C-alpha cells in the first residue's frame, strides 16, 4: 500500500534521513520506534508532503507522491495526526472536525462522520461548541485523532499519540487506534512508547539517527535483547 524507497531528507544543511526504506501493507499496523531526534516525525512529514525528499521516493497505492502537493495527498486517502496535536485552538471542536472533513463534500456523510467520532470520543460531543484551545491535553489528542478520521483515510499516520498523556489515557487512545484498525484502516504509528506500540503493531521498524537499524515482527522485537535494553527499559 505504502512503499518508502531510500529517502534522503535534509533540513537545510542538516541531513535528517539517510536513506530510509520500508513498507506498509494494507490492513497492517506498522510502527516506527526510535529515540528523540531519530527522524520519526521527519519520515511522516515526508510521506504527507510537508517535506520533500532530496532523493528516493514515496509510493502510495502504486502512485509516486514526489510531485503531489500535501493537500492533494490527503485526497488520496492518507491522513496524518501530527506530533503535538496541532489542532486549531481558536476554532471550536466541531469546526476542527469540519476541517478534518475538508476534502469531503457530502453533507450527510460529514454528519455521519461526526457521529462516528463522537461515538469513539463521547467527551468531544459534550464539548463540541467549545474552543479547541480550552480542551485538556488528552481531549486535544482525541480531537486530533477525530479530525484525522473525518477524512475517512485508508492509511492513518499517527505521530506520538501517547505524548504527555496519563497511562489511563494512553490505554484509551491505543484502544481507539485498535478500533480504527478493526474498521478497516491501515495504521502507521510513530511512537517513543515502544512497549505500547509493539504490543499493538504487527510489524515494527527501529529508527536511529536517520537510519533504520532493525525491523521485523513486533512480537519478536519485543523479545529482542537489544531492543529491550534500549527502548523498553530492561
Amino acid at each position, binding site marked *: 500500500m505504502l512503499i518508502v524507497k531510500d529517502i534522503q531528507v535534509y533540513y537545510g544543511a542538516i541531513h535528517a534521513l539517510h536513506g530510509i526504506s520500508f513498507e506498509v501493507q494494507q490492513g497492517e499496523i506498522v510502527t516506527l520506534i526510535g529515540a528523540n531526534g531519530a527522524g520519526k516525525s521527519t519520515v511522516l512529514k515526508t510521506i504527507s508532503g*510537508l517535506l520533500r525528499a532530496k532523493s528516493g521516493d514515496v509510493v502510495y497505492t502504486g502512485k509516486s507522491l514526489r510531485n503531489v502537493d500535501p493537500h492533494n495527498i490527503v485526497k488520496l486517502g492518507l491522513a496524518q495526526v*501530527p506530533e503535538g496535536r496541532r489542532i486549531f485552538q481558536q*476554532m471550536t471542536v466541531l469546526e476542527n472536525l469540519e*476541517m478534518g472533513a475538508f476534502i469531503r463534500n457530502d453533507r450527510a456523510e460529514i454528519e455521519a462522520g461526526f457521529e462516528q467520532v463522537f461515538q469513539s470520543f463521547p467527551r468531544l460531543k459534550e464539548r463540541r461548541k467549545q474552543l479547541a484551545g480550552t480542551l485538556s491535553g488528552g481531549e486535544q489528542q482525541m480531537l486530533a485523532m477525530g479530525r484525522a478520521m473525518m*477524512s475517512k483515510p485508508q492509511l492513518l499516520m499517527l505521530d506520538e499519540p501517547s505524548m504527555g498523556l496519563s497511562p489511563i489515557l494512553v490505554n484509551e487512545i491505543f484502544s481507539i487506534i485498535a478500533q480504527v484498525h478493526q474498521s478497516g484502516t491501515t495504521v502507521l504509528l510513530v511512537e517513543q512508547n515502544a512497549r505500547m506500540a509493539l504490543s499493538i503493531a504487527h510489524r515494527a521498524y527501529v529508527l536511529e539517527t536517520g537510519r533504520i537499524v532493525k525491523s521485523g515482527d513486533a512480537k519478536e522485537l519485543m523479545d529482542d535483547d537489544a531492543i529491550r535494553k534500549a527502548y523498553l527499559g530492561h
Partner: protein
Amino acid sequence: MTFVNQIINGLHVGSIYALIALGYTMVYGIVKLINFAHGDIIMVGSYTAMVIMTELTGLPLWVGLLIAMLAAMLVCTTFGVVIERVAYKPLRNTQRIAALITAIGVSLLLQNIAQLIFSPNSLPFPVAIRVPPVAIGEMTISFITLLTITVSVLLMLGLQAFVHKTKIGKAMRAVSEDRDAAQLMGINVSTTISVTFAIGSALAAMGAVLYSTAYPIIIPTMGAMPGLKAFIAAVLGGIGVLPGAMLGGFLMGVAESLTNGYISSQWGDAVVFGILIVVLLVKPSGILGRRTSEKV
C-alpha cells in the same frame, strides 16, 4: 459642531479605516506580512472609480457610483491577487524581511505607475451624491456619512459571517492558525491565501470609493495616509484579529475627529500616532490581541 456630531464624524472616517484595516489584519494573519502596498490599493480603487464615473456621464450619478464601486472592487481584487502571486508567493518560505521589503517596492511601483498614467498632480473625484442631510431628531447627519457607516458595518458583518460560516472562510482561519496542519486537512494554502488577498483588496476598494467621496481629491500618493492610519488601527485592535481591526478603525476615527474638533486639526495625526505608542507600550499585542508580542 456638537460633541455627538464629532463622534459621528469620527465613526464616518473610522469605518473607512476599519475597512482598510481588515485587509492589513487578514493578510498579516495568514502570511505574517505587513502588506505595505495595501494603502496603494486604495489609490488604485479611487482612480478606477474616478475613471469609470468620468466616462459614464450619461447615467444618473448614483448609478455611476455603484458601477464605479463594482469596477474598483474588481480591479483592486485583481491587483491584490496578482501582487501576491507575483511578488510575495515566491518569497513565502524565505525570511520575512524579504517580503516586507518587496511590499514597499510594490507600493512605490504602484505609485509610480499611477503618476505615469494620471500625472503626479491631484485630480478631482467626481461628486456623486447630492442628497440633503438626513435629520434624526435634533441632529442632521450628512447622507454620505450615513451611507459610509451603513455600508461599512454591513461589509464587516458579512465578513464575520463569511469567516465563521463558510467552508473557505473557516479554511482561512485554519491556515492563519497553523499552515501545515491546514495542509494536512487537504486545504489548498495558496488558494486560501489568494482568497484572503482578494477579500482584503475588495474591502479596500470600497474604503477607497467611500474615502474619496468624503475627500474628493485624488493623487497617486493618496493611499499613504489612510493606509498608515488603517495599519495603526489594525495594530491598535490587535493585528491578525478581525474584530480588533474594526474596533481599532472606529477608535482611530473618533480620536482623530475629537482632536480635530476640540484641540486643533493640526494635532489630529499626532494624537493618532500617540495612541499607537501608548497602546504598544501598555499592551503590545493590541486591544483584542491574543498572542504575546510577536516581532515583525
